[in-house]
């Protein structure tokens, strides 16, 4: 399946991926409105990690053997069959945060607004290219098929 990969040597730590992730997952999908009117702000589903000059954006890896799906008590965390993406069904999620604890990459977070549920990258479900990849100014994020 197509996944988001990061070329950390070209990540410039601008965090535009976070900005556009938040916009994409906002109600209006309009950047200024999302940030100025849809308050409190949601958590972006991609976060940039930084240490010294090294930085990289870290979205969900959509693992082949996802621990979050295995650990989920209610079956909310599941693999979407046509796309292969790991998604959280917010109607089923009870907010036990087991997935947050088991994720080895730390890319599942608590959704801070609305229904108590886990928040994670959904590869911008329905879009051809995830927003973070489309708006990365330095092609540090790429969306491609790498498995043989």
């Amino acid at each position, binding site marked *: 399946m197509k996944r988001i990969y990061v*070329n950390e*040597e*070209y*990540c*410039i*730590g*601008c*965090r*535009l991926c*976070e*900005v*556009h992730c938040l916009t994409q997952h906002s109600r209006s999908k309009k*950047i*200024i409105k999302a*940030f*100025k009117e849809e308050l409190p702000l949601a958590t972006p589903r991609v976060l940039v990690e930084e240490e*010294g*000059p090294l930085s990289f954006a870290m979205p969900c890896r959509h693992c082949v053997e996802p621990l979050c799906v295995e650990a989920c008590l209610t079956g909310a965390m599941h693999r979407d069959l046509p796309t292969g993406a790991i998604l959280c069904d917010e109607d089923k999620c009870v907010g036990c945060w087991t997935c947050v604890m088991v994720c080895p990459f730390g890319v599942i977070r608590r959704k801070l607004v609305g229904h108590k549920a886990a928040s994670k990258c959904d590869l911008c479900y329905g879009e051809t290219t995830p927003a973070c990849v489309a*708006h990365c*100014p*330095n*092609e*540090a994020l790429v969306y491609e098929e790498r498995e043989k």
Partner: protein
Amino acid sequence: MGGQIGIKMSLSLLTAEFRIERDEDRCIACQVCVRQCANDVHAYDPEDDWVYSNYAACVGCHRCVTLCPTQALTIRRTPLEFRANANWTPQMISSIYKQAETGGVLLTGMGCDQPYPIYFDRILLNASQVTNPSIDPLREPMELRTFIGRRPDRAEVTKTDKGMEIKTRLGPQLELETPILFSAMSYGSISYNAFLSLARAAKEAGTFCNTGEGGLHPSLYKYGSHIIAQVASGRFGVHPEYLERAAALEIKIGQGAKPGIGGHLPGEKVSAEVSQTRMIPQGTDALSPAPHHDIYSIEDLRQLIYALKEASNYSKPVGVKIAAVHNVAPIASGIARAGADYIAIDGLRGGTGAAPTSIRNNVGIPIELAIAAVDTRLRQEGIRDQVSLLAAGSIRNSADVVKAIALGADAVYIGTGALVALGCHLCQKCYTGKCNWGIATQDPYLTKRLNPNIGSRRLVNLIRAWSLEIKEMLGGMGVNAIESLRGNRDHLRGVGLNEVELRVLGIKAAGEA
């Protein structure tokens, strides 16, 4: 008195050059501008959830403007007006304030920005109408291939089974797909990623880039077949393998931005990798002497040319780069007679990573006049065929290329234009090492901003676009090969030029048949 030099006064009289307008209705306080400015212009105040800007630190490079996701930023020249004075301009006054505060030489980067006449903009090209047909480059072949190197006095050919074969032994030549090369820009003055972008683009576009005086990083040896290796007065990074790997060798005598003085790479830009490549200690200023200490005459130059030819077993062209100065024509004649295979001439507006402002803005002559004068002189002496001429010093577009070639150049070097393709906004702060575009810097936070995959793609695009335009212009003139344009000044006419300028350029005035 000496004790006062360099001590900052309590109050600086310098005022901000730019004003940053932030549209508060659009700013979402995402802090991209804060993270992108190496000059710390923007800062976020979490207490008020507000981003504010320090105008005084802004250099006008537009990094923040370009990356702002909501187009909330505009940079303007400061509206602050000094008391009107045609003689004491704000620039003159500010320069004195700066020097009164620092006691130092004023430094700058990029080429001369003063309003001297730009002759390219006063020369117009010809086109065919009725009496001679123009050529459509989309339907008919159009040759831009150019060879750089010494031409033989005559060529003997024989007929073989496979066709014609040249019997005369030709000197080494550089083969260019299009008459545009990337100027000398050293690794050190520009980042590794910038250099890699140039090297990759040169290989892909079938042209050459130039190491400048910074040596060649071992990881770039694989691009050697598309690299011209410079040997400058400091001899930085010159060793047998360096000479071996390159496609051509170039002795750098002078640079258009700073004729008569040597290079200066500040210690801040001499990182571990740069120090290894240049073979100098890390963090030390890389000062190349003004003259080559072994060249005090044309005869001395001849010795170095032939030393390099010997070293490279006469397998690659050896060129000489000089700045366009008053006596450029006789100097070029001397260089041709000293055995150079090509002469690169860098004009007044040629760029630099660091030069004293007073030198950059006041020394040298425009490339248009220099190239015309040199071509004329070499023709008069009957030695034009012995060398190729490369014109450098602010070639800004495809029309400048065509005009330079019609004035007598074989090909052109582009430096600033190439950097602009990589994102340079000509803020002229290369010497600070804080290039926000990741070009003229060695800071690891900044160099990664230039992705060489993007950089080389943009450079190849630029070369391709210019080449297409050159073909269109050639076709319009009814010429189907760049060879036929070289020194063909009949295709040029001057507008708004006086008789002396027209004579030096060797062109007629517009309207003269």
